[in-house]
């Protein structure tokens, strides 16, 4: 069952909500494919950022035009949503197992090591609260966190200027930092 991704993206961007489920399916399928390969490939030289995963899915799925204004950003918006869902699902599953174990993350830069850094479930909750206060800010954070979009791309998706995104991100970040802090 081949879906025309470009067309689905267009339908979705034109407000056709029915296009989102098949679009999400196609993207998730692609992420699965790529993840399968990752699991088989015991690379020592680099581990991937989710952005890269999504980027690769994009290349595989979306027809390449020289100058597409919007498709790329729209695709990443879908991918961001899926990535968020995947991570939240995953976090729920491993929550019980996580008792001080050291699961290491090695970033693309090679040497930087962090552990688990942000609790995805907490973040998910905070994001939901943020979206209740301001839906656009909720989308903004989702796009930047889970889709790896730049300010400019986020602006494209949300239909506002990059400056608005920058300001909205600054206040969202402060709010999240507060919301994620342990209770005093």
């Amino acid at each position, binding site marked *: 069952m081949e879906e025309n991704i470009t067309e689905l993206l267009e339908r979705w961007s034109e407000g056709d909500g029915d296009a989102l489920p098949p679009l999400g399916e196609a993207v998730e399928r692609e992420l699965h494919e790529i993840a399968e390969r990752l699991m*088989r490939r015991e*690379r020592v030289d680099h581990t991937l950022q989710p952005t890269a995963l999504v980027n690769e899915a994009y290349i595989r799925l979306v027809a390449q035009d020289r100058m*597409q204004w919007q498709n790329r950003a729209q695709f990443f918006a879908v991918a961001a949503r899926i990535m968020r869902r995947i991570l939240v699902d995953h976090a729920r599953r491993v929550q019980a197992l996580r008792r001080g174990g050291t699961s290491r*993350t090695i970033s693309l830069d090679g040497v930087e090591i962090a552990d688990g850094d*942000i609790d995805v479930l907490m973040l998910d909750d905070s994001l939901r609260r943020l979206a209740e206060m301001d839906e656009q800010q909720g989308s903004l954070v989702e796009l930047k966190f889970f889709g790896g979009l730049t300010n400019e791309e986020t602006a494209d998706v949300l239909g506002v200027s990059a400056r608005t995104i920058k300001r909205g991100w*600054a206040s969202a970040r402060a709010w999240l930092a507060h919301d994620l802090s342990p209770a005093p």
Partner: protein
Amino acid sequence: MNPERWKQVRQVLEEVLSHPETQRQDLLRSLCGDDSDLLAEVHTLLEADARAGSALEQRTLDVQAVAAKLSRVGQCLGPYRIDERIGAGGMGEVYRATRIEGGFEQRVAIKTIRPTFRQSGLDARFETERQVLADLEHPNITRLLDGGTTADGSPYFVMELVEGQPLDEYCDEHQLSTRERVELLTLVCDAVCFAHQRGVVHRDLKPGNVLVTAEGHPKLLDFGLVKVLAGDDHQGSLTTIHAFTPRYASPEQVHGEAVTPAADVYALGTVLFEILTGCTAERLATAQIDASEIRPRASAAVSELRADDDSSRRDSIASTHGTTIGGLATTLRGDLDAIVSTATRPAARERYADAGGLADDLRAYLQDRPVAARSKERAYRARRFIRHYGPATALTTAIAATALWWFGATEGPVFENVPGTLTPLITWPSSEDAPQFSPDGSRVAFVSDRDGQPAIWVQDLDGSDVQRIPRDRRPAQLHWAPTGDALVALEGTEISGQLLLVGLDLEGRELWAHAWSAPGEITGWLDDGIHLIGPDGASRMSPRRGAIETLTRDGPLIGALNGEVHPRTRRVVFAVPTTDRSEDLWVSDLDGSNASRLTQTSTREWAPQWTDSAGERIAFISNRSGQIDLWEMDIPSGEARALTLNFEREDSFDVLLDTGSIVVATVREEGNLVRLDIESGTESQLTSDLQLDLFPQATSGGRLFAHRTVPLLTGLGFRQMNTEIIAFETTDPQPGNVPEKVARGHRALPSPDGKLVAFSRMPDGSRREELWVKPLDQSGPRLITSLLQPVNFKLLPLGWWHRSYTWDADNQLYYVVHDDEAWGINRWDPEHPGTSLTAVRTAEEPGDPTIRADGWLAYHAGTGVHVVAPGAPARTLWESTPGTRLRVLAWRGDELLAAQQRDGSGALEFLALAPDGASRSLAVVPSSTTTSIALLKGARRAIVTANASGIHNLWVVDLDTGQLRQATRNRLRSAGYSAPVAISDSAVVATRQHEGWDIWLIQD
């Protein structure tokens, strides 16, 4: 906090955050006035923000965990353990699994179903069908053994595991004769008939669902599965799942009508057509369903191959069928033609009633008895149309025939023709992709895997010639060389960061292969065909020689090949991903020329490094022996041997070139450095302090660097590891040598002369990353910037990581900074340590970098269009107004061509910007969303696809006069098109339809 209050808080917060820290408290007090609650709330948020530091800004997600989550391998489903994924399709994945409970070990296949297909009533339907399917005990039908639901609610089916080949592959690989093919399909028909007699219709028969075992027995897969999944789909409602393969689906299935055994007959007839002729039925099926027409005779399809200029295709069909093309056509003519034709009639009632009827006629043919189909054929009336449909390959389609399809189709094309301006040339109503016109506009290259193998096809627009260039990987993008004699294909997306650019001549020879080290798309290929704008900047690319340079504002640096450069021979060794999940090692010159493949095994080989001063030997990681080990290869002889050091996923190594040894940082002993002698294979432990050591790196300056990590807990629950840089005073450390700690920090990058090491550090509680340089002569480290920006920025003369800083060969340090106001690309010179030079400084992320032949660069950032002359700082050429989207399109002599679109204003405006910043409006196109713009005729004409009120239109814009012509109206749903080219006064453009492409001639 309620939305109204947050709006208020947010306003103050954002204003305060946009100012430097020193001014914030005063500003906050003045903004809040008497509202002490507001002040307190904002103050709390500011504090939290400062405390969180960079954690939110520079988060990394655990992708391995994501991957593990996505992969089912190793998990258990009920009593089955998933061993390996063996296939994937639209509906779900197929895994090989082992039954691990119940006292006996049984190997099975498990099919998981995607959430799309999880419809209500699935469980009930499964239960109903289960008994029916369990009764289908036939030697040629795989049995449904079990089923269940995964923890996340996804259904799965357990089937008998069949090791076999798809029917079509089996026939061709064993070079079966026509007679043998008919015999095999007769057995398939018998099995389908067995099911038909028990009231079960398969609904998705295709070569991939008929596996042939090594003994030659056909096995049908997935019987009844479609019905379980989709339910009764004869209502044709919108929610019905069309779980079939369009190429083999009968018209009634496509139209959502009632499905009978005749649908399986249609699919079997189509499979028969394909295995008998070697041609695909795809295109004809589409035409047939839309125009209620019949498919051509099988023999005619084969005969037409004679007219096909692609002799290799002809030869391959003839040889796999063990005959000649003429002989094959003769064999098919008559009975077999009639059988295929009867089985594939558009009207179900005119076909064989069930698979048994088809089997009978095939037996009649095999036994030289009269076939039932012949009489029906004589009665058939529409024979005269057959010749119009030509052969089954779309590629030799004459323009006239396509035009006939175009105007003759009753369903109607999706375009309306505007007389005199738009002429259809070629239509591909299938899944061809990425069409690109040659520079002279006479040919079009596109990608297709119509015959099962990905290939680049190059077709003359007048239909006179077609070439096929088979590829191992399906190219995602194609680009022509400006000379029209070579193509560059972007291929292979096996792993991120390892896309492959391949240069090809038109005979299909690979000129070079270049690992495209950054994940991401090519956002633009400048019209000169030489400058390529990738995800990480501009490269100069010779279509015949590959990537030569990565360009920056400070002039060219040596390019970024993904591999290791030998210090003496300047040859590069690198790994290239392949489609079968392995990686091949390659060696080439620095510019990509003289490339040759070193390995061609089905195992992965990666991370190659040179091991000798002559440039003949490499070390690499491989799992040839079943476990991951270090190996060494002698390139001239091609011989490889294991150096026997068990590798773990996170291990890293560096070859100590002068000493014949390798240093490995392994996590297997809680992290330690191990020295491995290449000649003897003996290992000796260098460190044993139970710290985690990583990324050893020897420098020409006579030291061996590594990193060591110590866990550290910070506030907010954001745990991170404290990283130290350590160094041995020698590049050949021995057990007993103790490394000294160089600095606390990470991402150590020694300078090429070995006198300095650059590293970054994240001060506690700060969101800024700092860049430091430590001279190795005992003097203290020097802070270069506290505004280091870890962007995907690449200036890679020495390495191939994404880095926010790097050295060039002259020991100049480049880095990217970003503060609240601006981005900058800076350079630091050890000779003048007190100052940094800023090459580019911009307030917003730069977009559309566009280079003119003399090295001038233009880009847009924020609301401005900016230009950079070689060696000069960037200056703003023109400012737009806030709320406007900008594009920099092209240089047109001294003028810069740009476009702007105001949010919500519904118009796209083309502008010419003069060197003095004066702007001139060239044309305005009505559009709410512009999806693509292309320029031709020296940027004097633009072709735009724009969406207004949900309908995409193709516009031709004359940028000299401002005149617009609307080339299409109505129902152009899809916006894609390939960049147009001009042939004399006409433009050729390909537009994307729901499926496939149309190529148009646009005349003045």
